[in-house]
């Protein structure tokens, strides 16, 4: 691993897990900011939405009971067991490497504010598993093994998009960019 990657300057070991310490917001996420909303649903504790816009200064971390109306560019759910699930990336920003630095940022933020260590779900599509692998490598932590194929959900097996409103009735009501139009 490269310690300077994502502006990580140190690693703190907490119960066999590693929490990255950042000197600054990762330059790979220039222009992005994060909002974490506590939803306290049956399976979901928090919704984390990363935004690429100028509505907040770059690197802002908003912790709130409110959900922005704007659809996030990257979102994930944090379960009551601290497992991160239902990862979504705006199609406009896919294959650009934005997802990998979000993992260490999220672990650092959630540990700093809630004293929780987030972990990636083992039920992942191949694409998400690749990005998660890069995220774990950046903090020098072994990549958790993905579930065997027979234990994967249909969503991961078929690489199905997560639902539009994964924390219903908490909804991002503004326009969402869907898939590319096939000509």
């Amino acid at each position, binding site marked *: 691993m490269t310690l300077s990657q994502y502006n990580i300057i140190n690693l703190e070991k907490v119960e066999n897990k590693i929490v990255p310490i950042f000197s600054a917001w990762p330059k790979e996420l220039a222009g992005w900011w994060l909002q974490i*909303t506590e*939803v306290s649903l049956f399976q979901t504790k928090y919704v984390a939405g990363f935004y690429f816009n100028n*509505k907040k200064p770059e690197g802002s971390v908003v912790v709130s*009971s*409110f*959900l*922005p*109306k704007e659809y996030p560019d990257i979102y994930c759910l944090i379960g009551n067991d601290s497992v991160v699930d239902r990862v979504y990336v705006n*199609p*406009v920003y896919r294959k650009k490497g934005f997802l990998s630095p979000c993992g260490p940022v999220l672990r650092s933020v959630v540990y700093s504010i809630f004293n929780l260590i987030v972990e990636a779900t083992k039920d992942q599509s191949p694409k998400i598993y690749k990005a998660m692998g890069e995220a774990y490598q950046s903090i020098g932590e072994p990549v958790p093994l993905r579930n065997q194929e027979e234990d994967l959900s249909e969503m991961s097996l078929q690489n199905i998009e997560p*639902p*539009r*409103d994964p924390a*219903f*009735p*908490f*909804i991002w*009501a*503004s*326009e*969402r*960019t*869907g*898939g*590319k*139009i096939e000509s």
Partner: protein
Amino acid sequence: MAKLSHNESLLYRSNKNTLTHIGHTDVSGLYEFFVKELNQEEHTYRFPIMGILGTSQKPQITLPNKDKNILSFPDSRVHKIFKDIVDLIKESCSKFNLSYESNRYYLSSDLIVSHPTDFWHDQSSASRPSLFGILHLGNSSSKIKINETPLTLNPGDIVISEAGNRVTYLDSFKSLNIQVLPVSELRGQYLEKWIPLY
């Protein structure tokens, strides 16, 4: 129509025709009005403004109207347009077999400068009874598709349809996008974004 669960609504959506309802209102000069109002600046100084050596400080500049629901501006024209939109939503509910009263709808809106034409979009929520609308604020007619239904919108046209339908913008144009959600789907929303509909 009996009330459907969220999952039943998604199944319903995949097996139905696309429902749309179109109306019209006067929008001449409205886009420019909205842009002006949204960009009204507020300057905040810390007293004393003039320093001991005659230096003056720069104010902190904020845009207090930014991120508010622009249909809540106290203005007679905006009031008329809001009323036209609400009337159209009531007609749409009747046409789409939705109960306007029991859903206890709230409305929000976003001013859109241009629409990307290479991706489809959706808004409001994943399914009915939520609705969405597009009010054309451009200067010339534009083509869109809602699911596979082609529509031509002229300046001032408003189209209302069911949430979850895919919108393809075949032309890029200025618009006011409208979201209409029942109170049951508005957990965790910011206060200043939503107007209750009566």
